[in-house]
């Protein structure tokens, strides 16, 4: 793709008035911060839900004061019923996967930094950008409404398998209007994501500054670009799936509901549908979705590590090609979520091979990170610590994937805590570590004030140790047969595992408490943080060439010209051991 030949006129006029500047803003930076705030709210809710779940698992009859206010039916006397436990885990998963992991690393940081890092004034379609945020917010509000309605939230898990999710009220509490709200919320979310992905792609292809070839884009920009290509096609499959689900529930169609199904002693009027069809459609979206969750964090972590090591990676190009291969292979593996679903076992083989293959680019990336770190004089700060923590979590969580990728082993481990441990470590922790790293790294640029370094490092160590304490034992639990999505194990054969569950709960509550350090730091630094200079980390990419925070049009009306690849570190530059991308000094090599 050739670079833009003529510079565009201002994409939008300078914002006037409070509403235009801070509410219905066309500025990608404000929209990025709005996405971040939404992700923050969602993660607080999701984490709170996980505390309720963990508490209930080890102290199922203990009263949680005030919980009956959340749901009279679901938590009478402050004690969670088994059905409400399922509601809590459904909302936990839905909030975390959609509104946190798709929002924060991709929509929040990507919206803020992609245009800046390619030298553009804003995204290609600022109005679509604004629409995509507000659409996502509406989706969030519709979802959260499920807590408030008498029916309560759905109990079918974030994966909403049919026919439980498709038959309607007969399926249980929360499966009437609660499930409808879920379906509507996710359908709206799909539209918001598709608009966002479209924007990212058009911006990356056409609004790059002079000299900014595709291979000169920073690694995190590439990660956002590849993620948006995946998101564009993945959410395009989830939306039809949700539409068909809603039709089965409300219009009497039979896409997913088979004949002769009796639920709650009532024969369902549908016939001929295929529950497996829902699983295929959902996971065809669902597997690329988890790569949407991890790829931006991989990019952010690479970007931060290079800056902290003061030298480029062994090969940025290979990292980019690996990310592309992961993106490509992610479409071929969805059946590994369905090994025991009843689909043809031969298909399991066909899905197992690409699943194992996808570990190759992931491993290459890990080896490049580790190989680049070898011999590097790493600057230790909260951002680089979380970046290192990402690698640790990604490897720890990733290796359990090797086991799950094999159908014969998966027969034993499917729907156990082994799987839960696997995806929490890679998605829940590693991806969030990328968000933390990005926050500590870019907070100064976004707000004009730096976050407190000591609190940041304390936050890191508590979180790093805490999440290992929470999620490593999950693998053991899964291996000995502890099934997931059960609300209580106290009175059955898993009784002897309760001490371990108690340990996990205490670790979870403590690690959760440690996150208040981060929240405090986030808010306190906004007012009392050390003022940030233009380039506090001595970075080379374009975001470090503009003021902190940047003006409404990023480059103050100027159009940057790019002369180098993004990682000229460890070289003799006029400002130190680095050369900025837009500096006319000659490159090191």
């Amino acid at each position, binding site marked *: 793709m050739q670079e833009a030949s003529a510079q565009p006129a201002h994409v939008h006029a300078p914002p006037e008035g409070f509403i235009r500047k801070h509410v219905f803003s066309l500025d990608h930076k404000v929209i990025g911060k709005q996405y971040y705030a939404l992700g923050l709210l969602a993660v607080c809710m999701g984490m709170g839900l996980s505390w309720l779940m963990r508490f209930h698992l080890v102290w199922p009859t203990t009263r949680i004061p005030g919980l009956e206010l959340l749901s009279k039916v679901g938590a009478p006397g402050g004690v969670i019923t088994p059905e409400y436990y399922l509601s809590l885990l459904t909302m936990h998963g839905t909030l975390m996967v959609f509104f946190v992991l798709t929002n924060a690393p991709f929509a929040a940081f990507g919206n803020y930094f992609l245009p800046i890092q390619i030298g553009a004034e804003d995204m290609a379609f600022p109005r679509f950008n604004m629409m995509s945020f507000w659409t996502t917010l509406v989706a969030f509000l519709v979802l959260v409404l499920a807590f408030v309605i008498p029916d309560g939230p759905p109990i079918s898990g974030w994966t909403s398998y049919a026919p439980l999710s498709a038959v309607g009220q007969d399926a249980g509490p929360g499966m009437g209007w609660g499930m409808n709200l879920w379906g509507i919320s996710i359908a709206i979310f799909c539209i918001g994501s598709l608009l966002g992905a479209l924007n990212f792609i058009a911006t990356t292809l056409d609004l790059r500054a002079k000299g900014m070839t595709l291979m000169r884009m920073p690694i995190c920009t590439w990660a956002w670009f590849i993620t948006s290509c995946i998101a564009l096609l993945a959410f*395009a499959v989830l939306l039809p799936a949700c539409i068909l689900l809603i039709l089965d529930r409300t219009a009497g169609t039979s896409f997913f509901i088979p004949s002769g199904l009796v639920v709650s002693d009532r024969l369902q009027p549908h016939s001929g549908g*295929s529950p497996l069809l829902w699983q295929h*459609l959902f996971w065809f979206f669902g597997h690329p979705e988890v790569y949407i969750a991890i790829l931006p964090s991989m990019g952010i972590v690479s970007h931060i590590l290079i800056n902290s090591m003061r030298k480029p990676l062994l090969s940025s190009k290979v990292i980019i090609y690996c990310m592309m291969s992961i993106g490509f292979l992610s479409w071929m593996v969805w059946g590994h979520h369905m090994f025991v679903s009843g689909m043809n076992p031969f298909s399991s083989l066909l899905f197992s091979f690409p699943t194992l293959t996808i570990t190759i680019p992931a491993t290459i990336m890990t080896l490049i990170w580790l190989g680049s770190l070898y011999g590097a004089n790493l600057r230790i700060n909260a951002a680089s610590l979380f970046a290192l923590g990402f690698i640790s979590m990604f490897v720890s969580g990733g290796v359990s994937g090797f086991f799950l990728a094999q159908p014969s082993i998966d027969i034993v481990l499917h729907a156990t805590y082994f799987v839960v441990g696997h995806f929490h470590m890679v998605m829940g922790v590693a991806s969030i570590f990328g968000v933390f790293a990005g926050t500590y790294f870019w907070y100064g640029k976004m707000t004009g004030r730096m976050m407190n370094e000591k609190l940041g490092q304390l936050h890191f160590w508590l979180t790093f140790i805490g999440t290992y304490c929470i999620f490593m034992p999950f693998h053991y639990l899964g291996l000995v047969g502890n099934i997931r999505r059960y609300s209580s194990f106290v009175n059955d054969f898993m009784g002897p595992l309760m001490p371990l569950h108690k340990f996990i709960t205490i670790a979870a509550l403590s690690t959760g408490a440690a996150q208040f350090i981060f929240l405090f730091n986030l808010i306190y630094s906004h007012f009392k943080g050390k003022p940030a200079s233009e380039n506090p980390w001595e970075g080379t990419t374009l975001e470090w060439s503009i003021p902190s925070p940047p003006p409404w049009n990023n480059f103050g009306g100027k159009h940057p010209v790019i002369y180098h690849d993004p990682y000229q570190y460890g070289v003799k530059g006029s400002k130190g051991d680095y050369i900025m991308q837009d500096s006319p000094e000659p490159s090191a090599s």
Partner: protein
Amino acid sequence: MSSTTYPSVRAAAAPKVRSAHAEASRSGIWVGICTITMSFMAFLSALYVRQGASADWTHIVLPRILYLNTLALLLSSATLEMSRRALAPVSGSEVDSVAVRKGFAWLSGTLALGLLFVAGQYEAWRQLAAQGLYLATNANSSFYYVLTAMHGLHLLAGIAALLFVMSRLLLVGNRFRHSTFEATTIYWHFMGVLWLFLLLVLRTKL
């Protein structure tokens, strides 16, 4: 360029400078087309799987009006192309009223044919309902309504885009932008191609 090259050839050889924003509009619409195609592929996958899932697949006879609707939609692509050619010399600064009027007339024709298509699709629904085939009657009819409704919704978005372009032509000061119009035309033609494909699927599968 040698001095013997004719001026017209020299002019044609000079590269047309497109602003980055016009390029982005074009990329954007093609990206949008990719995503819409993918969503219809998802519906079609669901159709194929559902057909194989149980033995309740009964053939439905497509209402004849569908073929008239198809003709209307294809004609609308032709009128849109005529409009594009008429409006090619129009730019934001100059107001060439003859070109604008011709272009507007062809656009009106496109709009009328598009609305005719939508009305025809609604009539086809009514004819199916008269046969006793509703959304939930059987799997075939479900997919018929879903596919035609999805296409119709997207076409209505295209009609909204046409109205927007037409309104720009009418405004004093002529705020007509070629990039927006080009994106609209690409989208509209895509709606026609998509409909042909869906018609083929409906005929062969339903």
